[in-house]
């Protein structure tokens, strides 16, 4: 079901409360999608009125945890957009291979599928030992899952197909051990990952990287916020480093995009 019960003004009220009480700023998120998430949650949790919903969000810390989890969209996949991973494998990662040490930031990593995919590529290129993947998200609950590296087994067939399409030639099942419901990925993959909360709206640059991946996060931000986040990435990227965005996102309208060069047909830009 899709809800139709929360109006634009109520969205604004709620988001102002959230900023005031909890310090999370969603006011510059794309309006239509955040409204849809809020209406959906309102419907799911059977509130009788907007007033009750608003009061609960404001005063119940535990409920706010749920609010944060549900308002952010955490859907993700391993090797999503295989052609993107092919470009990482063929063009981007080999270029980083010349560095003594490789630092990568996966911003908005959700439950970690992207970070594990990346670690598999690094391993196959013999670069994993000298790499470190910083995987961050606004939502602490997804990070807890990401740390465990366990993904539902019924998705693995699709992931394995994606992996092959992305140019993988190993037996994909050699990367995990499976039980009835979950596949646990090798700990030598996660041993090269650092998980931490980081809010792209309010937190600062915390390191310099040679590669930043931020895919399917910026679609939820309005233009001004996107530009602020591009500035944050720019401050966090070494010269000749790479920035990778989601398949429908673009750096093009950002005023400082001149300092970047697009790689082939993928949504990957290199800082000049």
């Amino acid at each position, binding site marked *: 079901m*899709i809800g139709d019960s929360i109006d634009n003004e109520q969205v604004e009220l709620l988001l102002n409360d959230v900023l005031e009480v909890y310090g999370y700023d969603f006011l510059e998120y794309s309006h239509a999608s955040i409204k849809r*998430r809020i209406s959906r949650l309102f419907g799911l949790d059977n509130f009788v009125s907007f007033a009750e919903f608003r009061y609960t969000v404001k005063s119940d810390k535990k409920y706010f945890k749920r609010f944060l989890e549900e308002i952010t969209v955490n859907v993700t996949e391993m090797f999503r957009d295989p052609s993107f991973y092919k470009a990482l494998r063929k063009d981007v990662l080999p270029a980083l291979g010349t560095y003594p040490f490789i630092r990568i930031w996966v911003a908005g990593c959700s439950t970690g599928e992207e970070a594990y995919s990346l670690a598999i590529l690094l391993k196959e290129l013999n670069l994993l030992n000298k790499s470190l993947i910083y995987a961050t998200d606004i939502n602490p609950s997804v990070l807890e899952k990401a740390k465990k590296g366990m993904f539902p087994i019924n998705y693995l067939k699709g992931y394995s197909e994606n992996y092959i399409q992305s140019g993988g030639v190993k037996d994909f099942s050699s990367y995990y051990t499976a039980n009835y419901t979950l596949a646990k990925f090798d700990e030598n993959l996660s041993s090269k990952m650092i998980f931490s909360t980081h809010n792209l709206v309010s937190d600062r640059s915390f390191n310099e990287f040679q590669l930043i991946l931020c895919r399917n996060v910026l679609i939820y931000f309005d233009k001004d916020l996107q530009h602020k986040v591009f500035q944050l990435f720019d401050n966090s990227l070494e010269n000749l480093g790479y920035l990778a965005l989601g398949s*429908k996102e*673009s750096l093009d*309208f950002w005023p400082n995009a001149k300092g970047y060069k697009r790689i082939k047909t993928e949504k990957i830009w290199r800082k000049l």
Partner: protein
Amino acid sequence: MAQTVINNTCSALVIGGSAGSLDVLLEVFPALKAEIDFPIVLVTHRKSGSDSLLTDLLKGRTSLNVHEVEEKQEMLPANVYIAPADYHLLIEQNHTFSLDYSEKINYSRPSIDVTFQSAAEVFKSELVCILLSGSNADGVEGLKIVNKHGGMVVIQNPSTALMPYMPQQAVNIVKPHLVLHSYEMADFINALNKKN
């Protein structure tokens, strides 16, 4: 009926379709006039692999500009915007598009319901929606909301739809303004106008 058609101001047309709708689109689009003065948004179910196939097919068959939507793209008259595979397509108050990679709705992403609802909240009574052939019920909930906001609901005649289930569900549940055969649709769309 014809009276309703001519009097309805159209600021945006959204077409939703699933299995069996491609033939209709390939019949309708070549017959559309280039001077249509509203944007057309297309939401169809397809496999995520075949991303730009529909875009390429339509490009060769219409004088309108056809785009596969990029996020934040602005809606312009006489342009056709196709929802990219694997994202829900939403419309903002300022007539730009937002994409959303959230849960599938009715086993579908893009979901027709999502775009119909979002368009209804923005264009209200100046929205026209057409639901085509398909074999699930995506679109029906969205049409209810279009109705509620005073928009115009048009459904492909189930008797000649390749997959009648989706339009039949819609006809049963939503009160449509018009039920049209595919060969009537181009004339209907050409007669729609932004201002009268």
